[in-house]
């Protein structure tokens, strides 16, 4: 039988099953269950848990653990994620695989503790300094919190890049039946890059500081090549009744569930609505969206923000069809009825 657990706990279980060796974090609502749960669980498993003095330190501890090849993660919520951006940029530049989890809350500033989706830009457009990308996964259920946490480490290691899980206070706090159905990972391939002492090999250094003529330029070109490969291979999404849809809602995370209910409501009234749900926000499934942008179709980006992902939807459809927006921020929630009303306006 499935277990009833919170999204934040499922996330921990997914990471543990994937072989999480070290966790470093700092309390902030609505992700407090993560450090609280792992403070017991990791110690019982003989793994590493440290409550850091700050989000900054926690992210840098992850950098330290991950530089030795271990699976490491940190988690936080929006204001804390801002503090982690320094280390995230370094890890991207140093090509260190790690997991950073953002259980988003309302912003800007200290905002409030309600779920929100206002950190999309921060997650997919950089956040920290420099030309880099994170793989950004957007779970919309407790089951996916588990599965994406599990998968994130493989992705991070495959491409030697930090991965972010961009969830929100609702997905983090809600409980749903979940099946912990992934095998416990125990054996890991020997890495070619990690720092574990130079016994039997030449010393290594891992750095993002590349001052010699042209070296940083080449490093950036290599990073971009890598990002191209990731874009080609890893864009993930799901669709619901888009085949004959006149209005296709684009929504991720918690919004996508509300949007799906709205599609069902609209269909009951004979309105041809559909849902396109990116599961990866970067790479963004632009090609799949472009393929749906046929004459007569309109897109509606539904978000718990004042319009962030819509920019990528617009880039994807490239002016071919209209893209409209419905969103609320600051902890407010869009309802399925509001989406249906908006859809009706759009097809008038």
């Amino acid at each position, binding site marked *: 039988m499935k277990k009833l657990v919170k999204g934040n706990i499922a996330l921990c279980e997914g990471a543990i099953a994937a072989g999480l060796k070290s966790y470093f974090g700092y309390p902030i609502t*609505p992700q407090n269950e993560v450090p609280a749960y792992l403070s017991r669980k990791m110690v019982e498993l003989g793994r590493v848990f440290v409550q850091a003095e700050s989000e900054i330190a926690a992210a840098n501890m992850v950098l330290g653990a991950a530089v030795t090849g271990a699976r490491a993660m940190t988690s936080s919520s929006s204001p804390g994620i801002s503090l982690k951006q320094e280390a995230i940029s370094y890890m991207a530049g140093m090509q260190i695989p790690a997991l950073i989890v953002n259980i988003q809350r309302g912003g800007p500033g200290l905002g409030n503790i309600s779920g929100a989706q206002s950190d999309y830009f921060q997650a997919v457009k950089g956040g920290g300094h420099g030309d880099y990308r994170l793989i950004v996964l957007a779970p919309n259920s407790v089951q996916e919190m588990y599965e994406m946490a599990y998968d994130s480490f493989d992705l991070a290691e495959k491409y030697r890049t930090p991965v972010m899980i961009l969830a929100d206070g609702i997905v983090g706090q809600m*409980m*749903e039946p979940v099946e912990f159905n992934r095998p416990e990972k125990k054996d890991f391939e020997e890495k070619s890059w990690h720092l574990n002492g130079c016994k039997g090999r030449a010393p290594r250094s891992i750095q993002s500081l590349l001052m010699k003529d042209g070296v940083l330029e080449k490093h950036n070109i290599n990073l971009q090549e890598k990002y191209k490969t990731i874009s080609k291979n890893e864009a993930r999404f799901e669709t619901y009744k888009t085949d004959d849809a006149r209005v296709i809602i684009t929504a991720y995370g918690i919004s996508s569930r509300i949007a799906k209910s709205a599609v069902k409501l609209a269909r009951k009234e004979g309105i041809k609505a559909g849902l396109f749900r990116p599961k990866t926000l970067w790479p963004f499934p632009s090609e799949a969206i472009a393929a749906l942008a046929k004459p007569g179709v309109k897109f509606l980006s539904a978000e718990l923000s004042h319009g962030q992902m819509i920019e990528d939807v617009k880039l994807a459809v490239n002016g071919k069809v209209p893209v409209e927006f419905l969103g609320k921020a600051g902890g407010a929630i869009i309802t399925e009825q509001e989406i249906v009303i908006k859809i009706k306006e759009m097809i008038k």
Partner: protein
Amino acid sequence: MKNEIIIAGFGGQGVLLAGTLLAQAAIEQGLHTTWFPSYGAEMRGGTANSTVVVSVDEIGSPLAFNPNALIALNEPSLNKFMPRMIEGSIIIANSSIIPSDKEYKIQPVFVPVTDISDKEIKNVKTANLVAVGALIKALELYASGNCGEDSHKRRQSAEETEGDLCDLEDTKILTLKSALAACEKAFSSKPELVEVNKKAIQAGYDFVKQL
């Protein structure tokens, strides 16, 4: 069937646990369910609530956009959530501390859950589960009232038919049996509390049955 249930009361009255028990009961029956807490700054004393959605279909929002069931363990909770409840909602109000002689938009089912837990169960901490038992019976009566004369009799003994009231998927509701089974899961780490909480659920259920 879809129930969007709000359980509200003072922090410390066990509204989160009552919610998880309902969600666990839904799992026991193979229904879809979500549970969502209020996670405010207050730890004790303020109002707390949890929202449980139980449905035969996949659930979109775990937040209640159209709440149709409420357990109000104190008066501020009743006042706060009453305006949000849709027409025909089932409301269990803790009449041990909520006045039952006032005019309400939707007439609650008054159950003195604090008194029942105190006097019958001898454990005032179980008031939340007395209310859960009461809600299950009230939902069952409501469902049977909505299913037509023909199957009415079968529905009266819904606890034996595991809630398949109209033999139709979309009228399937939470049953006493699954709530009692959920109790064993919810208190698996404190087995000494299983029986007393089962008793509390049964007491709430029986109270409404006898109304």
